């Protein structure tokens, strides 16, 4: 019932908004929702913290951008290569980092790695365009449609988001997903029943990187420009805000967080810095008071409203 309602809402959403700017944000939220879901894999399911997740987003974006500018291959193939590139890099990082460290160490390592990559992308301007980035990236198209306006981009993003969500729903319920939750809850116990925790953690990290790469690649084709700030700390903070404010460890939470962040940041009436301060305060308040995020509350509220409404219907 609620799924049908949500699906209906998702399909009519762009027509409920009254200007192109809001529809633009709606399309962008789709990308950020995929991004937040990918970080959520690390934070929510592995129980680890990746302070360098923007690397995978940036790699996806730049791979698609460079392929689009320098080669004639189809952008759809470009997306695949970008996802593979991000996943490959994530696999390497996971392989080395997860062997020796967890917890705060993993956070610090990914933080340092992100800082290095950000400097490389910023400085190697012959390859990356330096501070100006890369512009003129091709649009995605299918026979008969070019995805170049807010509404078509939104629907394209929605398709990718639903596909991502479907993947994670299946993954969560699969042997793999249950194994990784077992590792999170009690690694010793999981190992004792024959789960090779290292392999599972590395592969999970790879999946997270792959979806961040997908988000990056879509970002490049949606906006047709990329800049090195995709690799910079503000993007990391953005996705952490989305996951934590929305609610980690659930699939609805990061999506909710992506909406809250995208619309909040652009609709708050202050300067950009003060907007981010507002988000910082919200983030802090949630960490201190409700580390599970906003989603569980919203869900309870929605359930209560639905129950009340159905009760009223019965009375009538």
């Amino acid at each position: 019932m609620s799924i049908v309602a949500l699906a209906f809402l998702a399909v009519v959403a762009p027509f409920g908004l009254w200007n192109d700017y809001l529809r633009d944000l709606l399309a962008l939220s789709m990308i950020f929702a995929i991004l937040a879901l990918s970080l959520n894999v690390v934070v929510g399911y592995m129980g680890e913290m990746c302070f360098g997740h923007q690397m995978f987003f940036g790699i996806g974006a730049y791979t698609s951008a460079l392929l689009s500018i320098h080669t004639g291959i189809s952008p759809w193939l470009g997306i695949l290569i970008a996802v593979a590139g991000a996943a490959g890099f994530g696999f390497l990082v996971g392989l080395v980092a997860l062997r020796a460290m967890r917890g705060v160490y993993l956070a610090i390592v990914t933080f340092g790695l992100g800082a290095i990559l950000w400097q490389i992308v910023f400085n190697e301007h012959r390859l990356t365009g330096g501070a100006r980035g890369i512009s003129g990236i091709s649009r995605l198209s299918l026979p008969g449609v070019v995805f170049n306006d807010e509404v078509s981009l939104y629907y394209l993003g929605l398709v990718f988001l639903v596909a991502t969500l479907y993947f994670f729903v299946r993954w969560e319920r699969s042997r793999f997903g249950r194994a990784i939750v077992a590792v999170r809850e009690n690694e010793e116990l999981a190992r004792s029943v024959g789960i090779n925790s290292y392999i599972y953690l590395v592969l999970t990290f790879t999946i997270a990187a792959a979806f961040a790469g997908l988000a990056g690649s879509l970002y490049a084709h949606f906006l047709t420009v990329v800049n090195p700030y995709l690799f910079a700390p503000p993007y990391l903070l953005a996705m952490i805000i989305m996951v934590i404010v929305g609610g980690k460890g659930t699939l609805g939470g990061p999506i909710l967080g992506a909406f809250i962040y995208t619309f909040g940041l652009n609709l708050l009436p202050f300067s950009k810095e003060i907007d981010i301060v507002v988000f910082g305060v919200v983030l802090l308040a949630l960490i201190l008071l409700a580390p599970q995020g906003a989603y569980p509350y919203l869900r309870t509220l929605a359930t209560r409203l639905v129950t009340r409404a159905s009760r009223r219907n019965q009375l009538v």
Partner: protein
Amino acid sequence: MNWTMFVQTLWYGVADGASYMLVASGLLITFGILRIFNMGYGEIFMLGAMLTFTLIRFASFPLLAAAALAVVAVALFGILVNRVIVQPVIHVHEMLPLLSTLALSLILLNGGSAIWTYNAFSLGFPFSWMIRLGGVTFSAITITVVVVGLGTVIGLWLWLSKARFGKAMRATVQNITGARLVGIDTKRVYDVTMVIACGLAALGGVLSALFRSAEISMGQGVLVIGFAVVIAAGMGNLLGAVLIALIFGVTENLVAVYGAPLYSRAVLYAIMLIILVLRPQGLFTGKGG
């Protein structure tokens, strides 16, 4: 090989190392006692420098008074950070202090840039004498920075090993339950730790601003360098951290002059990553793990 330039570069490295070792000592005692990495520590460093600048520029304080007031203010801010941001979540999950201090960094960095913009400011320095030895210049600023930095760290080390409260702090590091049993007020130890750590960062920020400049983004890179030093030296090794901080300062300057100026800091981060992967317990720690 131009030896004058080489020695000059080494000296600048030592001057940068002076502020790094204050940052690293602060991170080290925070990790030692509270078992957290403070992600907002770079912004505490920045706050020390920017408050000093503000007091000089807008309240016409002399440098010394401005720096002292700023360092004390930021140090006391440490109590607030501890009580509001760290303590409520410290025993809930190890990730939460990492996130709550990250939120602090976000608030201070963006709030700060709304106040101070993104420009670089000079604190000025009242003395312009210098010592010249065989073509190498030791300016009053760099000598002050190095002397104050080293003096502070030596003072900290003496205090930790000799003073009663310093011993209480070390006892808390070794065994918190035992420390409580012998009557150590561990809550107060936490407060004092954050006060000292924030004071060290603020002083490091002032030193860095004297030698380089005060700007809103100054804390960001320093945070990673601080982590790098602590990780390279090994947890709980203050003197090792001081040595590594100096080595890192020198390496950064040598790379900047003789290697790739754009990557002088990336090299330090890379050293940290390599050490973390090959020797996670640090260079100066005998035991594994």
